[in-house]
């Protein structure tokens, strides 16, 4: 599908003519080609095309929005009338607004067309490699896709931003089996601008497959103790997503965020520096335009332990009186520490090397609990046994404050660059 600039322009004019004080159109066209591996076989090639037009209208500080994928003139004309109607019935709220305009800009990243042959080869090679190097591995599902997304942001404040992104996304869910014994499933992913690199060399896949093979023989932990936990990169990335969710519009507007008054304050050990780098050339999943229609910038969220920004969108910033973030978050880059992983493990008297955390969503106060999956026991500085049915609990805020070290090694996922992290004082209990 092609991006129809005239459609966005004419729709914007129609919204203004229909009575919108402020209006915005976001037009997207998406094409995807996707290979799926089910039960260890490449068995589906799926191609999808879609369009999306999101209209926003503000009248007398009242806002409505509507999304549709029927982009013929009659459907769009109906949508214009409908979104004006939605705005008119809404509540007046001075925080409703659209982005301020600037110069017209275009951004491009990644290829425009998929290399289907290379994608197939990568999957086939991975299946062959696994047979030889990870003979216990069973792939439940793997998805390898190429997506091309073209976006056009236009609004009545003269915002005119266009972006084209193309990239490859790989995800694998797998477990291992030896006779009647099975390991817990694990999963990981990788993003890139080409399909040249063998998939087992990407991100953490090879290590996770190797560890998963060891995890067919797990042992339960006896008793309960307060100990250390080393977060692996896959697991840490998910935790960082949880941490940054406390900085976003919802908990900030309700006032429930534990970090609502923490800008400029220390919320973590000085060893932690967390960036959000959507413009990084190292990250294939980056973006140049935010959801509000502003040009994205890189930012540092936690600088040597100190919180430097919330992640407020335009509405959240106006509603709370806070500062709008310069990006939409994600694209995490954590600065490496100075402790080699081997030494980090050596520093643990008794604790867990946490491969995956299957837990409940943390409470507003940051409390969390759940099960340590794909994890190992560490005793006297050595990784000893794969763990079964081990529960972890703690508090995110206190965990960040008591970070002991960050590893010097990092894993590149193509959408994030993440080290290992040594946390202390978590409750660890066996079945």
């Amino acid at each position, binding site marked *: 599908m092609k991006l129809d600039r005239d459609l966005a322009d004419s729709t914007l004019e129609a919204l203004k003519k229909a009575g919108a004080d402020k209006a915005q159109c976001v037009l997207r066209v998406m094409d995807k080609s996707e290979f799926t591996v*089910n*039960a*260890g076989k*490449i*068995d*589906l*090639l*799926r*191609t*999808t*095309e*879609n*369009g999306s037009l999101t209209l926003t209208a503000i009248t007398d500080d009242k806002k*409505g929005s*509507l*999304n*549709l*994928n*029927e982009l013929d003139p009659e459907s769009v004309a109906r949508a214009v009338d409908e979104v004006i109607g*939605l*705005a008119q*019935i*809404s*509540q007046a*709220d001075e925080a409703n607004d659209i982005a301020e305009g600037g110069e017209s800009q275009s951004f491009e990243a990644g290829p425009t067309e998929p290399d*289907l042959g290379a994608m197939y080869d990568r999957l*086939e090679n991975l299946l062959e490699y696994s047979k030889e190097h990870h003979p216990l591995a*069973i*792939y*439940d*599902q793997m998805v390898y896709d190429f997506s091309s997304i073209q976006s056009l942001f236009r609004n009545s404040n003269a915002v005119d931003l266009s972006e084209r992104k193309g990239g490859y996304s790989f995800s694998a869910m797998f*477990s291992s089996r030896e006779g*009647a014994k*099975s390991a*817990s*499933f694990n999963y990981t992913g990788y993003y890139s601008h080409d399909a040249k690199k063998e998939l087992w060399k990407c991100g953490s896949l090879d290590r996770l497959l190797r560890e998963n093979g060891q995890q067919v023989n797990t042992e339960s932990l006896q008793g*309960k103790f307060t100990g250390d936990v080393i977060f692996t990169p896959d697991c840490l990335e998910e935790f960082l997503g949880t941490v940054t969710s406390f900085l976003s519009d*919802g908990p900030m*507007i*309700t*006032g*429930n965020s534990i970090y609502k008054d923490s800008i400029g304050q220390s919320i973590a050990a000085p060893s932690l520096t967390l960036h959000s780098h959507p413009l990084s050339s190292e990250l294939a999943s980056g973006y140049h335009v935010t959801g509000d229609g502003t040009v994205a910038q890189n930012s540092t969220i936690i600088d040597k332990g100190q919180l430097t920004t919330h992640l407020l969108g335009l509405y959240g910033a106006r*509603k709370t009186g806070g500062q709008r973030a310069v990006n939409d978050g994600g694209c995490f880059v954590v600065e490496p520490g100075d402790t080699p992983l081997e030494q980090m493990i050596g520093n643990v008297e008794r604790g867990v090397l946490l491969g995956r955390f*299957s*837990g*409940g*969503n943390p*409470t*507003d*106060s940051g409390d969390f*609990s*759940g*099960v340590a*999956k794909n994890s190992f026991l560490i005793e006297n500085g050595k990784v000893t046994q794969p763990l079964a*049915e081990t*529960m972890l*609990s703690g508090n995110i805020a206190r965990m960040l404050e008591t970070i002991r070290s960050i590893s010097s090694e990092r894993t590149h996922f193509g959408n994030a660059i993440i080290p290992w992290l040594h946390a202390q004082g978590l*409750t660890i*209990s066996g*079945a």
Partner: protein
Amino acid sequence: MNISDLKTHSHLFDDYTELRVQQNRNVGLTMINGDLVRNARSVQGGVSARVAKDGFWGFCSTPEADGAALERVVGRASTNAKVLAGRSSRAGLLLPSTQASGEYAWETAADRRSQKELIEFLEAIDAHIVETYPKLSSRLMALSNLDMQKTLLTSQGAEAHSMTPRSLIYIQMTMESGGEPVDLMESYGGLGQFEDRFDDPSALFPTLAKQYEHLVAKAEGVYADAGPKTCILDAELAGILAHEAIGHTTEADFVMGGSVAGQFMDKPVADPMVTLVDFAHTALGDTCPVPVHIDDEGTEALDCTIIDQGVLRKFMHNKESAGHFETAPTGNARAYQFSDEPLIRMRNTAIMPGQSKIEEMIASVEDGYYLMKPGNGQADTTSEFMFAVTLGYEIKNGKLGRGLRDTTISGVAFDMLKTVSMLSDEMKWTGAGMCGKKQPIPVGMGGPALKCTVNLGGK
């Protein structure tokens, strides 16, 4: 597009083909502390074709749904299957032939309410909460209505049309306790358009009072002791247990992918009092929260009794897995969007009720917990599970005690079900579930309360 229109394109079918026209219509409202922060509608629709050829699948979708688009998606889906067949050889797929046909629509007969009236509905609830519960520090409400409309034609001769709506209102109350926020969310609604699920806002007030009462108990509550405990899992937890811990492990694609359930067919996996069913559309005489009569492969949806009196008896199948296991498909193939391929998905998964009264079950516990409301959950191919628990109470000497702060429970489902010693006689359903497995999909979950031993996360 109706079935008749779609049938004019059946000449396009050279191989096994599914042609589906679908539209999902959503209404979304979110109100935080009385402010309407989201007032949106969305319509996503189009056509897709899935073709099986020489042992491989090809799929294609487009948002257009005219004759040219239909011809294009069938042709491209066929080409995609050929691309795979050109790279590898494989035995042809054994796809059982099914020819279900029918129309199933749950559209309301009432006059439709406008979006303005939906906003006013939320405003009335919010005003009541503000007036009645001044100790709350914040409140959040979200209204989510989904109308999912599908028309399906297959080369095997199946024809189906359905419109399955779901209307939900989520209400989260938060209060401060010891300087920290404590919250409790409840969902209201289920199958049907808004007019068939909700009448006057005041009808919700008694349940809001109960929600507030539980929140106060939770705010004044304690953390659970970590470790294995005797617990009464109320119906909502039994439902998520049925779905997450057993249901996923017995989806045939998971079994083919290494699920531990593959080893347990026809073996005891639970106490004999436990029977677990994935209902297609009707259970114990009532329509289920997510009724499926014909699945997205054109197979008549039938109940699948997974565990019968403690013995594992059946997996859930689509056509391909049914061919693999040499059994009949169960009608579990479902897709979320027009652009999604059908996957093996649960429909309405439930543990069947027993004969005990909930009061006598609580009275039978000397030292344990009554766990009432789940948060998110996750299960494993090993049948290990984890669910968040957002509401519960201590049980001391057979009586309910203090409220519980958020915790999690975990265990190995096929072990844990062997510890079940009592089942309540009351079956309850929740129709707010959204399962994630490559695609999201609405599901129903149900069950009685059950007494068992389970591992708790504490502090």
